[in-house]
């Protein structure tokens, strides 16, 4: 068998972010895949230990540009729980609204990118046009299109005024109409059916074995959503459903994501209509007592968890960030084996990879390490599944 090594990345037209694949192919078939995810490693976990909570929040928010509210919310929820601070209900609702708007913009972004990867650029343009309505709402509510910086320890930074709420509510019917169009398109659009169906198949057992989370897992029939199974914010008070699908391929994940956008629209509408009165923040103490917390959150891509340890000062002693993309990579490597090379973009895009939050560095003892975990290709230590 002839084995050809195809290096892809870190700079590559198909990749928006630095990532290196070392694909070993037999003809057109992928035999083996090695990943190097360490290009975007910045050292945020270490830096967060050196800043107080007020200054750590903007840093934590910049773990990822797309799910920024997820990271800042999961971090502040953890710190608040250690401090014993009760966040006012109005702040909880505002956090939920921003979280669901973020989920919508992330899933629409994903739908466009996935369509682009299969050569369906019309849908790419359409979803990104519709996404602007969500970004406009976010800008009106928070002041910024991306990196909303809404969270503070103890509440949120800005309040929502009635005109802002009305403007946000007015956009929801438009988006619902667009979602109906996408669902119709999903059923009879040949390009999507041909390139999404049966591609990147992941059975329920494999999804569980490789620890797939978020829409990747739910698209394979894993009925698991942190918002329902370990409720935070106000998800146990509002009506919504977990969307799952049993197809287990890219098509199934697309259906899950479009379904989640529709659910998010419902959540945003409910929260804005039932916004409780009251303060938007409480004064939190500057320092947190010693403690450990494992804070969980359902980001657009899946479960994101922060392990936080405090030591009685105004800084964290350790924060460990576990991101959904890191959990989903193993399932990608598994489902790519045996597929043609042309399937790499769409299968990789199907998990909605976010490299900036995933980049890890493992320092290996190169002198005595005989297992060859240092990449023979780059000669550098990296994180390999």
């Amino acid at each position, binding site marked *: 068998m002839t084995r050809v090594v195809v290096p892809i990345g870190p700079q590559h037209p198909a990749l*928006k972010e630095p990532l290196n694949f070392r694909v070993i192919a037999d003809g057109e078939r992928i035999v083996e895949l090695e990943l190097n995810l360490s290009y975007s490693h910045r050292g945020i976990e270490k830096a967060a230990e050196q800043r107080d909570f007020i200054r750590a929040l903007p840093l934590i928010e910049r773990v990822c540009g797309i799910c920024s509210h997820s990271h800042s919310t999961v971090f502040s929820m953890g710190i608040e729980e250690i401090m014993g601070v009760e966040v006012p209900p109005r702040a909880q609702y505002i956090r939920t609204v921003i979280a669901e708007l973020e989920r919508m913009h992330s899933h629409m972004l994903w739908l466009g990118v996935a369509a682009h990867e299969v050569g369906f650029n019309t849908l790419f343009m359409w979803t990104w046009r519709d996404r602007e309505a969500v970004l406009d709402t976010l800008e009106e509510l928070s002041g910024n299109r991306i990196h909303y910086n809404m969270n503070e320890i103890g509440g949120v930074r800005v309040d929502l005024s009635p005109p802002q709420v009305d403007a946000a509510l007015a956009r929801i019917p438009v988006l619902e109409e667009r979602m109906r169009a996408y669902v119709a398109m999903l059923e009879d659009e040949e390009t999507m059916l041909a390139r999404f169906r049966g591609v990147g198949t992941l059975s329920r057992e494999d999804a569980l074995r490789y620890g797939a989370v978020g829409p990747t897992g739910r698209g394979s029939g894993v009925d698991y959503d942190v918002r329902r199974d370990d409720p935070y914010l106000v998800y146990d008070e509002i009506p919504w459903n977990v969307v799952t699908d049993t197809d287990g391929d890219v098509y199934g994940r697309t259906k899950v994501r479009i379904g989640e956008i529709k659910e998010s629209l419902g959540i945003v509408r409910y929260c804005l209509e039932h916004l409780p009165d009251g303060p938007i923040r409480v004064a939190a103490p500057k320092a947190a007592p010693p403690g450990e917390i494992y804070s969980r959150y359902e980001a657009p891509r899946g479960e994101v968890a922060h392990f936080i340890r405090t030591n009685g000062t105004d800084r964290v002693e350790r924060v460990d960030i576990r991101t959904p993309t890191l959990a989903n990579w193993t399932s990608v490597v598994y489902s790519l084996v045996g597929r043609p090379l042309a399937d790499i973009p769409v299968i990789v895009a199907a998990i909605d990879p976010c490299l900036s939050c995933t980049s890890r560095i493992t320092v290996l003892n190169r002198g005595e390490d005989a297992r060859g975990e240092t990449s023979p290709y780059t000669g550098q230590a990296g994180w390999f599944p």
Partner: protein
Amino acid sequence: MTGPSRTLSRRLLDWARGKSPWITVFNSGGCNACDIEIIACLMPRFDIERFGILSRGSPRHADILIVTGAVTRQQAPRLRRVWEQMPEPKYVIAVGACASGGGVFQGLYHMVGSVDQVIPVDAYVTGCPPRPDEIINGVVACLGLMAEDAAHGGRARRTAAAPGTGVEESS
């Protein structure tokens, strides 16, 4: 604007380049926010193509390199290599607070810092992230710079490392 030393074909080339600059986007270790705002520039609402600007995958086809994110230690040699692959005249725009000055990631153990510590930068667009219209403004400002450079002896006239180009500033 027309320099006396430019031949007709040279002037035609400079004109064409200013009418349709091709860009390539390089993420040097950022958080994605600037990248998705750059992609939003290509989308129907902002539609950067009305200026003739096309996004290309290969740096060998590009006139303008847009760099996002503070430069990590692993990406710094790659960024340098991508820049070296670009044909002259080449221009670099640093998009975002991190690319312009390091941003919140200044001084972290795996960071080199801002983009201008690795390659020369012609335009800076700040903001975290900058809005798409600000990015478009930066690119259009860079186009003006290109036209001015073309008329007055090229990009080298602005760099201290290449003195004595002997071209006077435009009046």
